[in-house]
């Protein structure tokens, strides 16, 4: 089973990378850009076939390692 975990900064947390990208895009003349935030996406392949168990184990991975819940949120997506 394939899964994707999105890890993004919590609202309000400073995002130096996003800010720099925004600045660089403006510098390149992309004037329609109003806000940029950068996050991570982690793609996993699991030998687990039960979606419930997969989701639970992914949640556990996020809490323990994949996200720093002090500053980050995560979202889990399972491939059907």
């Amino acid at each position, binding site marked *: 089973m394939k899964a994707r975990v999105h890890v993004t900064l919590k609202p309000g947390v400073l995002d130096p990378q996003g800010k720099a990208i925004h600045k660089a895009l403006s510098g390149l003349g992309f004037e329609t850009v109003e806000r940029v935030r950068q996050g991570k996406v982690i793609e996993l392949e699991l030998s687990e076939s039960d979606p419930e168990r997969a989701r639970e184990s992914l949640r556990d991975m996020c809490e323990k390692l994949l996200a720093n819940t*002090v500053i980050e949120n995560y979202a889990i997506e399972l491939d059907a």
Partner: protein
Amino acid sequence: MKAAVIVFPGSNCDRDVQVALAQATARHASGGAPIMVWHKDADFEKVELIVLPGGFSYGDYLRCGAMAAQSPVMKEVVRRANRGVPVMGICNGFQILTEAGLLPGALIRNANLKFICRDVNLRVETSQSLFTGRYEEGQTIRVPVAHHDGNYIAGDEEMERMEDRGQIAFRYCAPDGTLTSDANPNGSARNIAGIFNETKTVLGLMPHPERLADPALGGSDGRPLFDGLVEALS
């Protein structure tokens, strides 16, 4: 005094801090060089001080310090820290301490997104700790930084609590001790370079005192930190 330096895969200042501690120990006390503890050794001998060295544990992949914080030895470090054994994390060690929850807040990418290696000035915010007893409050010292992710952040309330409890150990400052944004190499909130836990038994700092603890290297402002620790713990 006996100290332990924890070695994670990718640590690269482990020897540097071992040397600084060994020299301080030789100057003041017996106890010999610190022991080096491999990250898989969850069980190591009793020590008076635990040091998490700088470097790139696990390549700094995912987030700096994240994987190291989950390694077997860290469970033991957390247990001992909670029992009051002094712990110091330098640079990557500081990042590991925040990831392990022993210190509040987080260290994110430098504001200019670049790795920065240079000497900076630090204002010692308190001499009332095991770690800073040999400095004077308000003293300015010169110590190098070398990091990509040293931009300290914490929530507003957390930050106020830390200020109230005197948990700020060092701040980046101009040579005359003033806190300016020019003196802040990485964008850290309130120019923070190092913090304590509530009981001031755990210190995390981004600068590397072990790199200027030997006059042959062009300065020794880092030395009192090691001397003070050895003296306090012997």
